[in-house]
């Protein structure tokens, strides 16, 4: 019954050195482990510079990790020869933040997507057009759009083409790197709706990278909160974003803009994400955490809470050793 996960990442590390300060904590990903199950939508949130894009790029093989394993459908990426890697890329596709940078301005949508189909032989020759019309419908594009060029499309339509190209490869996993942050709210709503419908119909797994907690809450069933290359909190969306335990998640959530602002004081972080403030071996959030104290100079262990909720914070660790932590579990009813 329990199938193996589509994506399994173990102790993934990818650091970017700063030659002038070799002792400092580097940007990138530091020993991250997680799984994405078949058909699951997992969100990865964090501020710019926290390493979320690096993680996404490692997963699709655009960057070579320094250490750790990335296993996709039981195949370790590191074990693949360059030739096999090329055909293996079919399994994981990526959609970037700015669709205009990934579309070819000199190719019509049809030619562009056909290239992806040919590349991996996902559709027999001669059947491309029919399949493309199906895909266009799936991502909410009109059939006429297939013969247009990128400059004749709106931002939302371009992003749909990028999603369509990814789907044309019939991947098991699509990494979406901030797919809607360059779009207007109304267009964002359209694309998010499309993604949600798609996910239901096609069943592809998504790794959804974003800095917008509201968007992630809307589309993802599980979230991971990343800070300076480590995951500080993860678990089901309604728990992590409904009743966050980590001070960083709480602050991130409080900072999110809302139509109806929350009254009262908000937990907030000091300053900005600055690498220089973090010493080796300490909790990465310490420099900005409103609750930091002496003990945070050593990195906290990961505490397991009910329902697959994991938190890397001393506060959660303390609460857990005192006995079962009392977290309000939201009722299963979906709020109207």
């Amino acid at each position: 019954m329990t199938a193996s996960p589509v994506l399994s990442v173990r102790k993934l590390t990818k650091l970017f050195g700063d030659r002038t300060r070799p002792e400092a904590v580097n940007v990138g990903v530091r020993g991250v482990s997680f799984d994405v199950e078949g058909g699951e939508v997992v969100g990865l949130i964090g501020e710019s510079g926290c390493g979320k894009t690096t993680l996404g790029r490692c997963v699709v093989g655009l960057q070579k990790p320094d250490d750790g394993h990335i296993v996709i459908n039981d195949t370790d990426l590191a074990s693949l020869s360059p030739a096999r890697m090329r055909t293996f890329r079919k399994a994981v596709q990526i959609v970037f933040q700015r669709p205009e940078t990934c579309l070819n301005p000199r190719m019509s949508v049809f030619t562009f997507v056909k290239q992806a189909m040919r590349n991996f032989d996902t559709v027999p020759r001669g059947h491309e057009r029919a399949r493309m019309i199906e895909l266009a419908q799936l991502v909410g594009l009109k059939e006429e759009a297939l013969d247009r060029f990128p400059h004749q499309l709106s931002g939302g339509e371009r992003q749909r083409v990028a999603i369509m190209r990814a789907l044309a490869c019939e991947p098991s996993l699509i990494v979406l790197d901030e797919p809607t942050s360059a779009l207007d709210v109304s267009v964002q709503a359209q694309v998010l709706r499309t993604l949600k419908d798609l996910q239901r119909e096609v069943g592809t797994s998504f790794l959804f990278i974003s800095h917008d907690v509201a968007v992630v809450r809307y589309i993802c069933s599980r979230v991971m909160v990343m800070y300076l290359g480590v995951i500080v909190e993860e678990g089901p969306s309604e728990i992590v974003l409904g009743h966050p335990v980590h001070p960083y998640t709480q602050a991130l959530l409080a900072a999110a803009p809302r139509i109806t602002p929350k009254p009262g004081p908000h937990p907030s972080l000091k300053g900005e994400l600055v690498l220089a403030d973090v010493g080796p071996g300490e909790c990465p959030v310490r420099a900005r955490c409103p609750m930091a104290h002496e003990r945070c100079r050593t990195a906290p262990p990961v505490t397991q809470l009910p329902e697959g909720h994991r938190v890397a914070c001393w506060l959660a660790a303390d609460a857990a050793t005192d006995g079962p932590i009392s977290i309000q579990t939201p009722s299963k009813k979906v709020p109207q």
Partner: protein
Amino acid sequence: MADVLFSIEGLTIDSVRGGVRRRIVDDISLSVERGELYGLVGESGSGKSISMMASVGLAASGLEVMAGSVAFSGRALPARNQRGLRGNLSRGVSLLFQNAKGALNPFKTVDRQVERALRRSGRQTDPRAEVEVLFRVVGLNYRDFRGKYPHQISGGQAQRVAMACALATEPALLIADEPTTALDVTTERELLRFLARLCEEREMAIVLIAHNLSLVSEYCRRLSIMHAGQVVESGNLKTIFADPLHPYTRGLIAAVPDVDQPRELVPLIGNVWGGPEGIERCRFSHRCQFATPVCEARHPPAIERAGRAVHCVLYEEVPA
């Protein structure tokens, strides 16, 4: 409307490109009081930036101001007189843009840029000393930033430096055009809070241009919502958010995902400029589920209803 600092009356702008004339701003009016944080919201391409730029005399080439007037500090000028507007407003109005790093000169250190802004304002006797004060005002430590180039600082810090330049002239009005779009949520919130404080402490008025309603919700008291060059609804923010009347306002609110209570998103259909061109009509009609033949014939004038002004025939008469 006690102390109006800045007001736009009937501003109308055409774009003329390749011999084709299109009306891109259609008879918009708004007024901002002293010390007020005013929101101007709409999708990209709805004409928010274009109208604000034209109202301070910075209409881009290819745009033709057809009608309207702009009053600032009690002095009104026709909007067609762009040069006159620039002269009248340049001392009292500052601008803040979306891309702060693009607004700064990459070849000059940030402190020199702020100093230059101070010198050009011509009102400081000792610009050097004043630079430090300005850095403190925008929440940056002068010692850490002296001698730094724009590429060495973060986006949020660059936006603060741009703020310092904007404040150098001690403006009475600041036009902030999507100042937080390129920033993280945490930095975004700090910047908005800072703008709100400026309004309060310095009696400075700010027009905050945004495409996301949730951005203006916390700090603005009043707002205007624009669609395809027309103002569709304007008035007190709390009143409008509690009970939006115009179908477009409702659509915008329904399109914003909610962090606290996730609900299904209802996207607006179509795009801003999708409808028929060149005729007098409500420009939302091609996207509106309540559209009637009347909407295709004219854009209704402002209707005072439930504490705000709304431009929609739905509210014109008692429904039949």
